[in-house]
């Protein structure tokens, strides 16, 4: 039984109310609730928030996250997590997560859901158009610069190391020089 935090509070509130004086003097029927991580698969991750690098155990069942908690094996956090790391469950299980590409046309007032293939093709066309228009082989001094002046990028300290490496490879391959991210601010 998955009980959200507020759901749990509601239940315990109701029990107290039924008891009247707050405790029951009748024999209590013990109900053994199964561990919510029963039959779950475990993987470890590192918290995506600050830079301490706390290790977290993610329990999943049937392809869904059922629990996240601190990893006691990590010498850094030893099972502890702060409020943010402790709530990483909600980053994974959250109905507001974006699941489909969205498109905003010029001058439009709304988002529109679109297909990946369509979005990627338009993006590639845009990149080529911007690059071809703004690429400079030489600067005003006549020095060879081979750069794309019309496109800029910011991002991201939230990407994995491997993605950061390939992202800068991708951007510099396109000829960008205006490349920045969180480290600068």
């Amino acid at each position, binding site marked *: 039984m998955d009980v959200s*935090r507020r759901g749990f509070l509601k239940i315990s509130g109701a029990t107290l109310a039924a008891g009247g004086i707050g405790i029951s003097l009748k024999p209590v029927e013990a109900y053994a609730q199964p561990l919510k991580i029963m039959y779950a698969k475990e*993987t470890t991750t*590192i*918290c*995506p*928030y*600050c*830079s*301490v*690098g706390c290790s977290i155990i*993610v329990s999943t069942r049937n392809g869904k996250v059922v629990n996240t908690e601190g990893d006691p094996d*990590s*010498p*850094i*956090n030893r099972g502890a*997590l702060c*409020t*943010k790391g402790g709530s990483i469950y*909600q*980053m*994974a299980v959250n109905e*507001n997560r*974006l699941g*489909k590409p969205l*498109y*905003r046309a*010029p*001058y439009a*007032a*709304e988002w529109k*859901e679109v297909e*990946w293939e369509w*979005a990627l093709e338009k*993006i590639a066309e*845009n990149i*080529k158009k911007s*690059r071809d228009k703004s690429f400079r*082989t030489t600067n005003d001094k006549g020095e060879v610069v*081979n750069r794309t002046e*019309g496109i800029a990028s*910011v991002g991201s*300290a939230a*990407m*994995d*190391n491997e*993605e*950061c*490496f*390939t992202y*800068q490879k991708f951007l*510099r*391959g*396109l000829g960008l020089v*205006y*490349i*920045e991210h*969180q*480290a*600068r*601010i």
Partner: protein
Amino acid sequence: MTNHWIDFANSDVILIMGCNPASNHPISFKWIQKAMDKGAKLICVDPRFTQSAARAHYYTALRSGTDIAFLGGMIKYILDNNLMQEDYVKNYTNASFLVNPAFKLPAENNGVFSGLVDGKYDKSTWSYQTGPDGVILKDPTLTNPNSVFQLLKKHYSRYNLDVVSKITGTPKEGLLEVYKAFASTGKADKAGNILYAMGWTQHTVGTQNIRTMCMIQLLLGNMGIAGGGVQALRGEANVQGSTDYALLFHILPGYLKTPAASLPTLSSYLEKNTPTTKEPNSLNWWKNTPKYMASYIRSVYGLNATLEEGYHYMPKVDDGANYSWLALFDAMYKGKFTGFFAWGMNPACSGAHSNKVRQAMGKLDWMVNVNLFDNETGSFWRGPGMDPKKIKTEVFMLPCAASVEKEGSISNSGRWMQWRYKAVDPPGEAMPDGEIMTEILYKVKELYLKEGGVFPDPITKLTWDYGPKGADGKIRIYDPHAVAKEINGFFLEDKKVEDPTKKGVFKEFKKGDPVPAFAWLQDDGSTSSGCWIYCNSYAEKGNLAARRNNKDNSNIGLYSEWSWCWPVNRRIIYNGASVDINGKPYSMKRAVIWWNGEKWVGDVPDGVGNPGSGRPPFIMKPDGVASLFGPGMSDGPFPEHYEPLECPVEKNMMSPQKNNPVIKRWDKKGVGSELDEVASCDPRFPFVCSTYRVSEHWQTGVLTRWCPWLAEMQPEMFVEMSEELAKERGFKNGERVVVKSARGEVEAVALVTPRFKPFMIGDTVIHQVGIPWHFGWITTADRKYNPGDKKAEIFTTGDAANLLTPTIGDANTMIPESKAFMVNVVKKGVK
């Protein structure tokens, strides 16, 4: 960090200044507490009595933007009272170097150093005296008036208690208490530690703030030892990695410099950027630059291009040009870009002067915005004050995977590269960032191959071998292991290489073999490595970042077999300075490395030759010693107190020069934009303001505001103020007010606390207030929601703190001055 999180437990004294780990790196406090359990003293210096201050043995307040005055006073205290670790200073720093006699200090030059011309320093007088052989002249007695040491003493002699107290607003007893406690770590067997974060970096003198503390650590012999060093508490889970991998205009992965336009060939680049030294014993590790640059070029173009061709393809930065964040958004505001990637970032809330940023984005033709949730950047066109009918920007908001939905590594602030695993698939059609960029690259490449276009080679010749390929030559999935192996590096041909540590001993490598460590990288193009400092992380021993051995064999908490850190798993860098010139550890109980008769044991040794070899340990500096005198800085070889650009005082009490003389003044006509107003000593904005964070939210709140558990703990934008200020203005705790600056305004809840106290600056009472920067309009209740829009389960109130901050950056890094600017606070509804 020079050290790492667990190492805090080894400190005798910890200074928390310019950061608040109890709130923003909460689990790190476990290690601070451990040190305190062992008897360590905790000092906290902050304009506000923070959660970290609540745990400290000593707390004192200082006005935002006066850290150099505070720390300069500490330098004077250390020197006046002979508390420095003398032989460390003599042997491991440039204290003995003789400086050009034409060099002038601010005391004798109207508050600036010699050589200031048109807002820039000609550094020719910031040079050392050399002998006929080019070796720097030194005075080992440190008494020569032109010695770095005597100049240091002279410069900081002005930072007496009176003037420091007047500038900072800190009572003299407070200053002395802190100075005494910290300077006690100058003893050889004592370790003093400094933790800092954006409270130091976000100033026009930010880099010099940090440098002042580095100098203190050098004077006290605290650099390179367990429990010592200088610890940057970084803000994001992988900002260390993203910096290492150079998502910044001025560097390439591994801190190589981006090629300048005046350097048309690789050989000219290497000549300019490879440092040399005449110091006979200096290792000068950056002399290996040619190996790292050649290997980097190979990691980009493989064997599809020669090294010179690969260099030619790389975009060049104009000499002296600055394309950093503030310059980027200024250029965007001026219509310079047609396209923009806001990839895993929310500049509409994180950028200084957010109004300028938001308006700038309206000048674009297109934006690609990759994120987990809807946000103020991708949706900027429908934000407050925006009329979508007038905004042409085409926006693509692409859904990406969260950290638990993909595999890869991140590097924490202690440089530990930790591998993490995929738990579940991303929701809906969201994809890992690596897949998204792969798709985009392939499509761009296809267009160029099909249609031709401007100089396609730099794109079409990129290697992208991150997994098994299909019949179409494209990788089927983006495999982070393949990327990690490319980053580590491998041999591109069979090669016999001499062992870098054993002369005359050779090792045979076959094509495709991983490079064991960066000492094996070659300058002739026979090796490929994406980032030399990560070379060794995924070599013949496999994925070291994934190691989970949590037994510690050191007694100083190194945990050398849990994950892997750069460089070459060295946990405490500069540890060559933890032993004296004869190789004996300064502290036996906290020894980092020691000589067992044959070799160094303990941590991976750094920089140190065999005992008695005379090799100076700071091998990343050409001269091998650490810099008390630092001519590499753009605003002076010694830190000097200057006032923040927006400040409450008419005069700098230290000198006639009010502000940092080399900062770029975006507020001046013709430099920035008409939006870039600055208001200093302006009665409209009488309070000093600083931004900070709370535990429950992270950065702009772009992720945390969508998490109900966190949003309900901290739902409201607030402005924290002293009881005295609240009384003066008639504010009640909990009342809705408006915070205003010369650039914008934000509604907030008044949080009246005793944590702020008014400062006495000279004869004037100066109030300081603080605001969190976690909020944004997208998760508020009172905004327009279209059908299908995501709606936060728990609404937050308020918009970005950065609507108030100015376009002004540090003289060296251009990090915005968000920790000291001027505001007013008024009741809601009052003008």
